[in-house]
């Protein structure tokens, strides 16, 4: 399955939900926000949100800034 994750097209074969995708790619998911196809997906919805081929996912977190 091909997912457009954080601006890059990537191949994932054993990912079913957004939760799986985040767990596979991020060590610490505290303070992370997920956007899927332009829609913000609340943390409690990650396990129920199924990933489909071609989905566009953005994972964003706070960084230093002025």
């Amino acid at each position: 399955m091909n997912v457009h994750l954080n601006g890059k097209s990537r191949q994932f074969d054993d990912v079913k939900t957004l939760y799986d995708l985040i767990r596979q790619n991020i060590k610490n998911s505290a303070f992370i926000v997920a956007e899927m196809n332009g829609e913000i997906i609340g943390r409690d919805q990650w396990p129920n949100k199924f990933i489909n081929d071609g989905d566009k996912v953005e994972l964003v977190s706070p960084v230093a800034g002025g």
Partner: protein
Amino acid sequence: MKTPEHIEDSPLIIGNKTFTSRFLLGTGKFKSKKDLSDAIKSSGTQMVTVALRRIDLEHHEDNIIEYIPKDITLLTNTSGARNADEAIRIARLAKHTGCGNWIKIEVINDTKYLLPDNNETIKATEVLAAEGFIVLPYMYPDLYAARALVKAGAAAIMPLGSCIGTNKGLKAKEFIQIIVDEIDEVPIIVDAGIGAPSQAAEAMEMGVDAVLANTAIATAGQPAYLARAFAQAIEAGRLAYLSKLPPVQKTAAPSSPLTGFLYDEHNAVTN
């Protein structure tokens, strides 16, 4: 007798919070997380800014939030936004990170001077304030825009002192003063360009309610020292403002009594 131990000052209230520190610290550009952490402690700040970025999946980085004490209010900026829609998108994302609903709106569509776009900032403020965000817009110091931001629901107005990261100080002083004199509804916070404690004190003496600084402190040889110096200058400037500074005079006025006995009355020189 009023002494500095019994200062009669109204607290700084922004949105639903009361702050005893009038120093907001930006977290960008610090050489290390330790420098940032030390500067936060040394500054006594109660509000720091953070930004939002797409996570770099190839290079794991510690989360900035882990270095900020939990009792400090996080103010997420919308840096990178080029119009109101992008700022609104960033703010909504920020809310879901768990950093709270305090947003510094920063809409910039100019890479040379990094000047904020007041029109887009007003649009974003209106939408986000209606959604319940505590909105602190960074703006070019224009009275009409400041009034529009208040009407749009801003919790504070943040005019720039000078261009971001320049350390030039209060280049926009006269126009900030107009905003300070005319806008009573919300606090005025000078943001951007403040490069030295003396400049921060100058802003506070004018009646500005708080100062936000970042680059000067983050890039100093000893950030924690400068953070403390800023805190003291901001406090000194506030106290000077409360003292009701006397006006500047065109000509000299003696501060000692005229001697009298050196000259006869008819040829006395009044200096």
